């Protein structure tokens, strides 16, 4: 290997080492308000293997950095990635985020996040059969990005939902999408007043995880505590501009008990990335 290539390789190693040194701290414990734990969650996250970049263990670490107490790993019509969840130290009380296994049921009519399930639900089932199959496993059903392009579900489906995404990064690109999501949320509340508002990042491989988030008012810091809170509609969804969707009494509780948003990468961490990228470019183009 030539001298220039050795220097490039050293830059990559130095960058990754510096990046590890500059890594963020641990997850702050959830605040308490009104007798509940206030958890920050991201309920629609894709993982590797699938169309996400990160393994569930890496997602859990990133959730800690971003101040998320709960993430829901939901790949399209498969639960393979959720099998890796068992090796994740997960729980909440010990400072680790809760990682909930799920599936994004991807059907021609709609996408649903079925949170809290282990076995794949067949996307060819009818709406009623699908809801029964999820509940039989103790899961909850969340309508995913319910805009016209990906949602042709009936009012009966809206009535069967435990939660519905009302905050999603797709609204960044088009104002019309914001109006569509608002209209679908209003319709869902009309036919299903207790439906939980959900904010999700639909994270694949573009940061940040938790770009949109859900505040969950849970009686316990556990998978069951989170799922029960969704069933009871005790959530607030936060949009990118800070707008909150959900019950006014919960908004009042959040005022003095808002979970920290975690840490964004420090200047050292960004410098470490630049070192690594320059090193890799050098390895490709320098003799």
């Amino acid at each position: 290997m030539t001298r220039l290539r050795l220097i490039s390789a050293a830059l990559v190693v130095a960058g990754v080492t510096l990046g590890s040194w500059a890594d963020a701290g641990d997850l702050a414990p959830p605040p308490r308000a009104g007798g509940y734990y206030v958890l920050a969650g991201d309920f629609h996250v894709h993982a590797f293997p699938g169309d996400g970049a990160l393994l569930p263990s890496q997602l859990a670490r990133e959730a800690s950095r971003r101040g998320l107490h709960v993430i829901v790993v939901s790949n399209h019509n498969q639960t393979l990635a959720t099998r890796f969840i068992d090796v994740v130290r997960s729980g909440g009380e010990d400072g680790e985020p809760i990682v909930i296994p799920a599936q994004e049921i991807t059907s021609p009519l709609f996408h649903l996040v079925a949170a809290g399930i282990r076995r794949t639900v067949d996307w060819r089932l009818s709406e009623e059969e699908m809801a029964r199959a999820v509940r039989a496993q103790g899961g909850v059903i969340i309508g995913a990005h319910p805009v016209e392009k990906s949602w042709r579900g009936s009012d009966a489906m809206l009535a069967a939902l435990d939660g519905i995404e009302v905050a999603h990064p797709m609204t960044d690109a088009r104002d019309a999408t914001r109006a569509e999501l608002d209209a679908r949320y209003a319709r869902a509340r009309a036919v299903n007043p207790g439906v939980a508002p959900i904010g999700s990042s639909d994270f694949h491989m573009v940061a940040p995880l938790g770009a949109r988030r859900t505040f969950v008012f849970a009686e316990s810091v556990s998978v069951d505590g989170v799922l029960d809170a969704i069933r009871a509609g005790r959530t607030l969804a936060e949009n990118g501009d800070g707008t909150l969707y959900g019950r006014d009494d919960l908004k009042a509780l959040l005022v003095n008990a808002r979970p920290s948003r975690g840490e964004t990468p420090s200047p050292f961490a960004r410098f470490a990335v630049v070192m690594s990228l320059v090193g890799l470019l050098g390895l490709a183009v320098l003799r």
Partner: protein
Amino acid sequence: MSDELRIALRPRASYARLEGSPPYIPFYILFVSVLIGVCAAWSATGRVTVGLVASLSLSWAFVPLLHVSTAALLVASAPARRVSASRAVSLLLMGHVPWSTWLLVASTMTATGGYALYREALLLAIVPMVLTLRIVHAFVVEVLQAEGRGAIWRTLAHQAVTWAFAAIYIDRAVRLLPRLLGALS
């Protein structure tokens, strides 16, 4: 300027000149794995750490392994080549610069611009697609000694097999059938 960059810029002249290379396959697998690991970590978290890069590199190491396999298939299809099989595979793998550069640029675009630049980053992939076609064709002509239509068919077959692997992974990851049915309904 590296031989890899020369191949990207002037593929036929470079392949005509290059007789061989030092053992390149292990370097290629390691380099591309780490490249994917760093770029995925950068785009997905905005950081690079030993744990992130190591686990991402291992997770996605099947990508360079598939490249080596498709390169070996192409080389095996041409017994009249002017170098040994392993040298020929190495020479083809040295044509990685267009895709490697795209990965660095695309991850930087998505890491700094988020979803606002996601579509543009994907569209930019047209550049390495075209450049790689040119590189593979030059390799087939200069190293595998194929001519005319035979060279074109070999080039297209290699790219078709490579993209078929990609399409299979994408289908398993995003489930194309229900989406297609939804779009048609």
